[in-house]
């Protein structure tokens, strides 16, 4: 704890002046110890299910159950990677993983292009009916998928699009909320740079690509992260539009697998780890982008 106090003291004067009241109070040792005690307890609350999952994925299934109700749940007795092999064989996790990756990456990539073009046009071009289009996009933001999922599913069934990859990609490319985020971001950028490019005779697409896209990286990161999390986690839509395991994504895969007899909790924990770990690793690497992305999703009118 002494170390913590030492660093607080060592913070440059400017930063300290900017510190809030709570920051300054951490100079008292008792306060600091109290703060850390609370933080550690909260960390335990948020971490224990994930730790339980990682440890469980390494243990034989019967041990997972036997150890489940005590501290032993967090110690990897008899650790091996056997569960991962079994989950891969029994639930075809590798195949589901590739399905999820394909669906999610296509949705995110195409969504970034379509939504940023749309948002840019709203922010920059003076066309007839622009105000109406902006109002319509803002109104569409409040319609959740759940309100029209069944009619959309009915449409897809009529078109015989069920059990395909594209039925899981096409409906989620254009998104009014992401359009709105791009729109407000492009509005906040100064126009001078593009005007110079236009005077040089570049067409709008070239101007957009060369000048605006690099400037709008934070907006692209925000939308990429939000749409990745949403797409990777989707369960309701795959429940409706996939029948067999061929094009099924991971969330529906685990929802089915955890009820598939014989129920082997070690295998189930290995499955859960496979779909969670990559995201956690990506999150740890791009932490600041995630946090800023989420924070920006709250900046709405």
């Amino acid at each position, binding site marked *: 704890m002494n170390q913590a106090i030492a660093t607080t003291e060592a913070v440059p004067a400017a930063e300290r002046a900017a510190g809030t009241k709570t920051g300054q109070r951490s100079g008292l040792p008792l306060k600091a110890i109290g703060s850390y005690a609370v933080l550690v307890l909260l960390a335990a609350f948020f971490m224990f299910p994930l730790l339980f999952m990682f440890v*469980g994925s390494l243990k034989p299934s019967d041990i997972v159950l036997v150890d489940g109700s005590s501290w032993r749940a967090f110690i990897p007795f008899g650790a091996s990677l056997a569960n991962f092999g079994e989950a891969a064989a029994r639930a075809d996790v590798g195949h589901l993983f590739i399905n999820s990756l394909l669906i999610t990456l296509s949705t995110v990539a195409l969504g970034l292009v379509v939504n940023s073009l749309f948002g840019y046009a709203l922010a920059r071009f003076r066309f007839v009916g622009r105000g109406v289009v902006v109002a319509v996009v803002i109104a569409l933001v409040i319609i959740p998928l759940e309100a029209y999922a069944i009619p959309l599913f*009915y449409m897809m069934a009529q078109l015989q699009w069920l059990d395909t990859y594209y039925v899981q990609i096409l409906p989620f490319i254009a998104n009014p909320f992401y359009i709105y985020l791009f729109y407000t971001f492009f509005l906040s950028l100064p126009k001078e740079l593009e005007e110079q490019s236009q005077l040089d005779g570049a067409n709008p697409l070239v101007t957009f690509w060369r000048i605006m896209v690099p400037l709008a990286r934070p907006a692209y990161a925000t939308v990429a992260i939000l749409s990745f999390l949403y797409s990777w986690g989707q369960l309701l839509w795959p429940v409706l539009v996939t029948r067999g395991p061929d094009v099924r994504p991971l*969330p529906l895969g685990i929802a089915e697998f955890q009820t598939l007899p014989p129920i082997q909790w070690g295998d189930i924990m290995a499955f*859960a780890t496979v779909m969670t770990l990559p995201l956690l690793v990506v999150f740890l690497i791009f932490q600041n982008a995630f946090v800023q992305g989420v924070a920006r999703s709250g900046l709405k009118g």
Partner: protein
Amino acid sequence: MAAVTATPPRKARHNWSDQLAAAGFLLPGTILLVAFLVVPFALAIGYSFTNLRLISPLPAHFVGWLNYQRALADPLVRQAFGNNVLFVVVVVPVQTVFALWLAILVNQKIRGIRIFRTIFFAPVVTVMAAAATIWKLLYAPDSGLINGFMRAITLGHFHPDWLHDPHFALPAIMLMSIWQGVGFQMIIILAGLQDIPRELYEAASVDGASGWSQFVNITLPQLRNTLIFVGTITTILAFRLFDQVFVLTQGGPVGSTETLMTRVITTGFGQQRIGASAAIAVLFFVVVLVLSLIQRIFIREQGEIV
């Protein structure tokens, strides 16, 4: 004067090449939004007045408000709506206050605070279906960790069968939902906290205001819009509740975890009654619409509100 001279060039930009470029930029998004959002949503309203079924030898016909009358009279739909409301009444205040507390904690300038912020946010990055699966084992009556803990602190007196007891199934889903979702709200509130001008706190300190009085008189009023936003999206998410229920309880036991969304899916997909399901979905949308409008009324214009 400068403003007046700035106007003509803008008008001049109102030209054909701009119209054409706009059309090109808007085209892909427009086609997709119309095909996969506007049309199905319009169909939801249209179908809700018909007896359309997924597969039927007879053509669908107009049935007026029948689907709505049935939905509103259906005990399961009423129970589902009640569960959604109960979920909102408990989870929205608890999760918002919890998120506010977490945001204030991780806003402290102390060593290692970023590690805690990361840990509190980590469940948000997990997939709900996977997280719910883990919690299913945590909630197991005998071999689950939660009852292991409950037995230890109540000396063996309290160990319900969480997911199979009608009194505890919804609270169990509430707890895991808060665990998974609160980090998201924490980050939004944290951004709001960091936007509060520091001078306000400095001035209050000079005046000798206590920490609590600063919280009540500066932090809360400054966070007003953020908290309304967080409260509203949490409420809307609560009405969309589906994934956790699908994995953990499938609406049971005895309907104690049915939600509007499980009714929409069971009716439209399980029973293939597209029209009846659309009516419940439209009722669900009306709730979301009202909540969104209330939010817009209560959120004041961004600007100085002290």
